[in-house]
């Protein structure tokens, strides 16, 4: 095995994709060739460092786009007639089948022509093709397909995402304020217990409220209470 042959197969060798005899030949070459061995070590190091990288998650927009395109393809499928769907399903097999039919037909024509040759007249002159016409046929590009508008995220999904965003903001603010309010009240006191009971009640109201106006209002009630507690306004009341 030459260096050129060995280096062309290094990646496949390191990935364990070669058959036993080729892998053995490369192993043998690497034992005797310093350059190829160093090249193999470099390949292995790069591969290991790439494997250590975190796999980035695709942004949700890509997934939405993929799902939307899949949905569109399914919708297009569902709108096809039964014959169209059958044709679509058979399309991969149509080319070989038509080639085979064509070959058979050509063979039949040849046999037929040979049998009829003595009876046939001299071939007719074929009219020459006008170069201008031919050029026009070949050079004019086919009409461009209509532009496909970009697939967008639907408004219903965006509205649901907006609700989730707002809910997440409520949770974040409430968590921040809860910490500040508890700092005001200390760990163990009657005021703290009353405060915790009040907060628990307001949290239950948030959980029980249906999404929409009722839940928004429940969140505002909880956050208003926590804000006053964080400021120290409610703490004095609770202590009283």
């Amino acid at each position: 095995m030459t260096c050129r042959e060995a280096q062309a197969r290094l990646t496949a060798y390191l990935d364990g994709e070669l058959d036993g005899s080729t892998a053995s030949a490369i192993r043998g070459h690497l034992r005797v060739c310093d350059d190829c061995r160093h090249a193999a070590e470099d390949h292995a190091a790069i591969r290991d460092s790439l494997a250590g990288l975190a796999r980035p998650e695709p942004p949700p927009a890509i997934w939405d786009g993929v799902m939307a395109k899949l949905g569109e393809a399914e919708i297009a499928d569902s709108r096809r007639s039964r014959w169209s769907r059958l044709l679509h399903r058979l399309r991969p097999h149509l080319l070989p089948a038509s080639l085979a039919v064509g070959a058979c037909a050509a063979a039949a024509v040849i046999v037929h022509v040979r049998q009829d040759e003595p009876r046939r007249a001299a071939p007719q002159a074929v009219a020459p093709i006008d170069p201008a016409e031919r050029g026009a046929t070949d050079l004019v590009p086919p009409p461009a397909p209509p532009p496909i508008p970009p697939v967008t995220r639907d408004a219903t999904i965006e509205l649901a995402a907006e609700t989730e965003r707002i809910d997440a903001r409520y949770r974040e603010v409430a968590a921040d304020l809860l910490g500040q309010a508890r700092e005001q009240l200390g760990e163990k006191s009657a005021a703290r217990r009353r405060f915790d009971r009040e907060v628990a009640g307001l949290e239950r109201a948030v959980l029980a409220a249906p999404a929409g106006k009722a839940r928004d209002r429940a969140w505002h009630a909880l956050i208003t209470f926590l804000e006053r507690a964080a400021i120290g306004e409610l703490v004095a009341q609770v202590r009283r």
Partner: protein
Amino acid sequence: MSRLARLLIVAAGLAAGGVAAADSPPPASPAPAPAEPVGPVERDGEVVERAELTVAPSKRPIRSVVIDNQLGDIKVEGHDGDVVSIVSVKHAPDPATLERMRVTLVPDPDGTVRLTTNIADARERRPAALATLRIDLTIRVPRSARVEGRVGRGSLEVANVDAGAELDAGAGKIAVRNVAGAVRARSVDGDQRFEDVFGSIEAHAIDGDVALDTVRGAALDAQVYDGDIEGRHIASREVRLYAIRGNIRVATESQPGGVIVVTSLRGKVDVHVRAIGRLAVRARAGGTLSWAGPAATPGRWIDSQFGQAGQAGSNGSVRLESRYGDVAFTLLQ
């Protein structure tokens, strides 16, 4: 005719965008009356459809109008009549999306008119981005009707009504002008503005500012988590303004026996008070306390009296605090 049947008729009318009215008004409820239909038109690469509808009272006057529009703006204006007139303008990228956008009207026999917008699932139709569609509602209501409104990213404006309002917004702005009666407003990241309000205000914004101009009610209670509060010409008897991370700047008149409490946890507090009688002022600042009273130690409460003693009951009290910021107090007499 059952309530469900009436709902379906009215919803279908508005959804179709044509004559948005029930054929025969139910006897015990406000009756939608036909109005001039305007079909969808294509304009600037979008399809726009305008529909109008009038709801007249039946046995009971219209006492309350409840609107929920997550797809655009709401503009409510009071008028001297007794009917509710609704103009809806839908914008969509194509006719198929326009068909998905619905405006539903439910006139209840108890005198409440409910108006809701929504968008149906795309199902087999091409998805449409939220930014490419909207429904804007302009509603004229009797002045005596109470208004309840809710928007998502759109703006919510209420003007010239006398029975107050309850308003909710997500990222949209709330604007209230020339309103009497109690007003309650909540927003997440939208600003709120109140102008010429002659009733109590209870406003809460999470990530938005609250602006107040000419407010004369029994109580003004405004609270923000991360935003500023700015007010002028405030003459409520009880003023309570709270901010966690924002600044508060307010010019107010002290009312006899009134209370002014202005507190920011991390922001600055700047209060100008016009007082008739004597004011008992209590202040604490984590930063600098700027006032005409004695010098203060940062973080400690300090009390002082301002102004001339007036008639009995004309004195008021003021409490100002910023735990980590500056506090400024100016008396105007």
